[in-house]
């Protein structure tokens, strides 16, 4: 058993070793991350849950190499990350689509910047759009798309170059509950097809449990990992899984955890 564990540990794709981050600001240092140790395996779907402002986005930008840790080390594929790690796709809370580019042109930005062959990837972009149900919208500008559609386009853009890692920072936070459910179902389907290593930052306990193999709970700032919860629900999960006692056990447990952290102090 311990042998197996050691083996899985070694195959961790993303390895955060005692990572701490302090921002130096005009008003003094802000300790965002206290000390985070975290290993994420190849192909795993991991959610980061934590109170607002605790450092989830910071953690994500450290993994992407968009920021450098003040202490400790981020390793991906056994390489220390000191500059932007580009074998990944990112989806932000606001889709960050460029206003002057159509849906498909926004997706192809990824290809243009990387200097990949546009002709090869154009059909792939179309296929991705069809997969998220936006076949008819490839020539629409962002302001002709709904919030959910924009996030789908952003997801396509994050996937088109077939990266190893998919990072999502509250991608569905601004969507209404129904669109969000649909997006969760779609994302699960796409993730199961592509088998990417996925990290999802979310504020929704239900979303975290529904989507993930593992839910990481972070404390308030300066953040550290306070719980690492394995979610053993069979896949593919239908949205109905949220009505099962097993699912509710997980969410109840996490809710209690947050209460203990003082996040839901007013109820």
């Amino acid at each position: 058993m311990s042998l197996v564990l050691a083996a899985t540990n070694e195959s961790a794709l993303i390895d955060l070793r005692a990572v701490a981050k302090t921002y130096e600001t005009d008003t003094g240092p802000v300790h965002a991350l206290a000390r985070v140790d975290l290993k994420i395996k190849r192909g795993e779907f991991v959610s980061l849950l934590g109170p607002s402002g605790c450092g989830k986005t910071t953690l994500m930008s450290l993994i992407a190499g968009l920021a450098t840790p003040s202490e400790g080390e981020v390793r991906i594929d056994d390489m220390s990350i000191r500059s932007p790690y580009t074998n990944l796709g990112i989806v932000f809370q606001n889709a960050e689509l460029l206003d002057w580019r159509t849906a498909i042109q926004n997706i192809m930005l990824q290809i243009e910047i990387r200097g990949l062959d546009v002709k090869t990837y154009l059909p792939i972009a179309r296929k991705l759009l069809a997969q998220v149900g936006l076949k008819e919208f490839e020539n629409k500008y962002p302001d002709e798309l709904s919030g959910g559609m924009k996030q789908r386009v952003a997801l396509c853009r994050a996937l088109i170059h077939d990266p190893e890692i998919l990072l999502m920072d509250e991608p569905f936070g601004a969507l209404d509950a129904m669109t969000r459910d649909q997006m969760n179902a779609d994302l699960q389907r796409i993730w199961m097809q592509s088998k990417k290593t996925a990290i999802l930052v979310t504020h929704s306990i239900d979303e975290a449990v529904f989507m993930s193999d593992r839910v990481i709970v972070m404390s308030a700032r300066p953040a550290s990992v306070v719980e690492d919860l394995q979610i053993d629900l069979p896949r593919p999960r239908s949205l109905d899984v949220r009505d099962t006692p097993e699912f509710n056990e997980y969410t109840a447990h996490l809710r209690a955890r947050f209460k203990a952290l003082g996040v839901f102090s007013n109820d």
Partner: protein
Amino acid sequence: MTETVMTQIQSTSAKAVTKKSKGFGFLVPVCSLLASVLLWEGIVRFFSVPVYILPPPSSIFHTAIAQHQYLLKHAISTSWAIFLGFVWAFAIGIPLATVMTFSASLRRAIYPLLIVAQVLPKVALAPLFIVWFGFGMFPKVVMTFLIALFPIVIDTLAGLSTVRPESLMLLRSMGATRWQSFWKVRLPTALPHIFSGLKIAMTFAVVGAIVAEFVASDSGLGYVLVDARANLDMVMVFAAIIWLIVLGFLFFLAVELAERLFVKGSSHRRSQELGAGL
């Protein structure tokens, strides 16, 4: 399928509506303009206002057309001054704003100079220009350049800093170079702002060229204006003004056409809203 048809129908009907309202919106100012010209003509005739005080529009238009050879020659001279001054302001203003965006110390160094150059009454400089540059095209271009530079730099500066940090993060995660980020994201994001700056700069440029011609030139519509007034030829003064209005309008139109060409997507609409405030 039905959805696309629906959106197509919607978009065409939306276009029809805007076209209709545009056509109607175009008629109103034309009518009011026509009415005021007629009123002007009526008043001048009814009270028999002397021509050297206020000539009737009919004789102004007559002169504006009959003397077109003389006026065109000077209009071309003025146009060159406007064009060259504007192009210089563009060619120097955009890179200047760009370096100011990327280097805080350069920004701090250039900003005060720019403001001094702006608040300085440039009309007062015109007599100096005669001393320094003599008569002719050069002082006109310098004046036009000086007046057009400020709005271009200020608006480009504002535009280049409107980019969202997340957009830049996204680009970095794609492995983009600074140059790629600038070219693909920062500059296009700034374009609507840049174009509002260019529009203001263009109207300023016309003023700049005329002011220079008032003082330090022997050609151009500004010179025609001064010369005609000295001869109490008020009809010619007004005819020159009409040519100036048309000239300024054409230059402005050119910038707006360029904007339509270069600014796509929703930022186009946004910039049109901004432009509507002018």
